[in-house]
């Protein structure tokens, strides 16, 4: 059987940038997986944007997680495209899944998990209220341009192809 979990592209920032974008995503896979390992010049939330849609009202998400400080966990929802934090001291690590990204039959869903050391670990589920096939994915600091992704931030996009 052919290998089916393939890297599509990797971006490693050589200087501070507002965002990382994967564009012209091939439409030949079933699911996409985006692995992010980023650091910033300030503590902020991260956002994702699909097909250049910057309107946060076109997304909603639910988050559950914990800080590990002995207190109870948390769960909240937002009508936004946020998915996590990016800090200046510790690199974050997130794995975001975009299933059925070429389908035009339903809204697009994202589930992901990750965290920032000495902050929180979180799980996310998010909807993009659009049925267009996903052709580009952007990740950025929520408060850009005040905060940017620092040099050395890495993101890799993988494609998974079902038989």
């Amino acid at each position: 059987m052919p290998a089916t979990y393939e890297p599509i592209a990797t971006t490693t920032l050589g200087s501070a940038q507002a965002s990382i974008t994967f564009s012209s995503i091939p439409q030949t896979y079933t699911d996409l997986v985006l692995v992010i390992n980023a650091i910033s010049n300030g503590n902020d939330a991260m956002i994702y944007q699909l097909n250049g849609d910057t309107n946060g009202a076109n997304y909603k998400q639910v988050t559950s997680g914990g800080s590990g400080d002995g207190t109870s966990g948390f769960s909240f929802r937002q009508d936004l495209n946020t998915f996590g934090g990016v800090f200046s001291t510790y690199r974050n690590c997130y794995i975001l899944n975009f299933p059925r990204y070429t389908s035009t039959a339903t809204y697009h869903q994202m589930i992901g998990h990750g965290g920032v050391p000495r902050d929180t670990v979180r799980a996310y589920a998010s909807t993009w209220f659009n049925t267009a096939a996903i052709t580009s994915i952007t990740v950025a600091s929520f408060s850009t341009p005040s905060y940017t992704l620092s040099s050395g931030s890495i993101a890799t996009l993988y494609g998974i192809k079902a038989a």
Partner: protein
Amino acid sequence: MSPILGIWASSQQGAAPSNSFESIATVSVGSTVSSVTFSSIPSTYKHLQIRAFLVSGTSENNYFQFNSDTATNYQWHQFQGDGSGNSPYASNPTSNPPWGLNVSNATYPMVSIIDILDYADTNKFKTVRTFSGNPGQNNSGYRVGFYSGAWRSTSAVTSITLYNSNTQANSHFALYGIKGA
């Protein structure tokens, strides 16, 4: 594309190496069914992963069955939050383990990624980890969370059935095999 770069990134980040993850079988649902079964699963992999995309109009418990075992040989617990501001909660029932959250509807598909570890090892019980999310059904339907389950059998897993009585068109289930070293 650079497979070498992909393998390096995978080892750093926890994703699968690009040459060890293979598609075994896929079910694309064309009209409503009550369950989906993967049978005659080859025993040549180390682990299995199911990537499920459920379109359903029914909120119900979605549960597994391995090798058609209908007895009470399962157990599981969960960690999930509903976005209401309350703490995530956990439980540990003894029924068949869920393969996804019970909050799906036709407008907001439910997504699950299910890992079945050492499924062919006849020296141990089988363990399952499910990561599932559905963010947008309604004000009470938001969910994201994890399940961990066990099938108390040392038999190799050769078939897996995923139940939801209202699995609608555009639902999609893909079974993958992950090789060991």
